[in-house]
């Protein structure tokens, strides 16, 4: 009789242990997805930094006297690069990246006035790459928020919330844009 009781207890213990391991691993996996999602945003932001010098050079060749706009782009890029990308600086980083977006959109808007520039193939390529990179930044942020959503769902719903509480799985914040001006998609006109 004693052995049966002990056996049942052992089986229950093993099942609970396996369940805890499974939930723990699931939470860790979702947390890694969040970190990876955040890193993917940085990859796309970095891609934008890399595209800008080429764009500035190309535009300079045709519209060199638009100094203010060109300098604004270069300055915004420098500023954005200088801020490290981590959770502590997320708000600041978002603001500066937003400024870079609007500086870029002004530059591209000005380009509209230069038919020679618009006929330049490398400019057209850069324009396509830049437009796509803007989309990729947006989609990377969307994906990051999806991963945060899945992580938070596992962290907060019962019964996995017990495991999350015991092992101190910390809360992850969604990526949000601070003000309405940034929420607006940068106005880049690609007139035909």
């Amino acid at each position, binding site marked *: 009789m004693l052995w049966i009781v002990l056996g049942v207890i052992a089986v229950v213990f093993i099942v609970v242990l396996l369940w805890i391991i499974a939930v723990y691993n699931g939470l860790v996996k979702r947390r890694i*997805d969040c970190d*990876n*999602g955040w890193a*993917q945003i940085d990859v*796309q932001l970095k891609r934008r930094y890399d595209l800008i010098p080429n764009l500035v050079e190309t535009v300079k060749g045709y519209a060199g006297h638009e100094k203010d706009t060109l300098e604004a782009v270069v300055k915004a890029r420098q500023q954005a690069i200088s801020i490290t990308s981590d959770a502590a600086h997320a708000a600041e980083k978002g603001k500066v990246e937003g400024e870079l977006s609007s500086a870029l*959109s002004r530059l591209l808007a000005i380009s509209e006035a230069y038919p020679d520039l618009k006929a330049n193939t490398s400019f057209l*390529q850069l*324009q*396509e*790459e830049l*437009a*796509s990179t*803007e*989309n*990729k*930044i*947006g*989609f*990377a*942020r*969307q*994906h990051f928020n*999806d*991963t945060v959503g899945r992580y938070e769902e596992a962290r907060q719903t019962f019964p996995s919330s017990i495991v999350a509480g015991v092992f101190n799985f910390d809360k992850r914040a969604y990526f949000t*844009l601070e003000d309405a001006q940034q*929420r607006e*998609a*940068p*106005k*880049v006109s*690609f007139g*035909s």
Partner: protein
Amino acid sequence: MAERPGHDPRAFGPRAQGSPIPGVPGIPGMPEIPGLPGSRDDKPQGPKKQDDQPERPRPPKEESSLNIAVRERVKAYPGTMTFLDLIRKNKRQSALLMFIMIALGVVIGAVIGAAMSFYVGPSESSILLGASAVGAVVALIAAGGGAAWSFYSGSDALLRMAHAKPLAKEMDPELFNVVEEIAIAGGLPMPRIYVIGDSAMNAFATGRDPEHAAVAITVGLRQKLTRDELQGVMAHELAHVRHYDIRFSLLMATMVGLIAFATDAFLRTTWHIGASGRGARSRGKGGGSGAGIAFAIALILAVLAPIVAAIVQMAYSRQREYLADAGAVELTRNPKGLADALRKLAGDTDPLVDTANRGSAHMYIVNPLSKMRRNPRERASLMSSHPPLMERIARLEALMR
């Protein structure tokens, strides 16, 4: 739904309105396609051929009747519905269909087994049972081998069959970027991209998992879509990849094949035994009425099961199309892009007869074979691999309200 001013659900990023891609027609090795319209038309295109609909001679009229049908259908969905609701609904229905399929296989196997054991008396059974066991093992190995083959090299075979050519980024940067954007949105690795040199409008995805995925698009479709529409189509294809639809439909096809094979083997065996005059009833003592009833049930089931299996398979295929549409909206957050693309596809009457067959039809975004697309409002038939375009458009536009 037709007049929806300034709809722009995405908060991030500018979207270039796509231009006809200069790179595509010049791809080396691509067959020249005569008769492609040079200019892109933003308006939904009416059907070009009207030969099957003499009562509606003019394309604009047909298009507007599609609009009316879509608008009425949209009202059937609750106004608060989101793509998450759609996905949940589709998943439930897919799971139900999968369950029906497995149950069908189990029932048919059990009944045939029972009938056979009644039917074959102990005296003669050993040889026949041995033979049927060998036959079953052979069938299992064949089915397993077929499934394994299509699992590992089926996608390459399909791409070859469709005459799809791999595309490098330099050839069409916009298409490449659009696919990359969607891959980022879904957290998927970048799939390989193929182009099919055909003026018909279609696209498909293949690959056993996201790491081995490929998407293919016809030149005809590529040239007629704006960037938003292209994004919708590619998101639909990548949603198939993300949901492991290719693997699931392969599993489905294998089960349908096994059921058909088992029932066929059963029918042939009984016919053979019956012809040689050693049936249960002629033996008299062995079975009696129990054997007769079991045998009759098995016979009816054996005739019906393959048909039912095929119907379930097609229902499943249609369900996965809806799921991929909803999954596409999850990725792009822009139902309008895909809805507009489907409207354009509804106007296309070119079948992909050279490159697609019934075996690969379910892979495509719209049925590549059917005349159904000439009348997009046609109701779903039991044996069609795709839901009616009208219904798909309506579900997407229900998300846009």
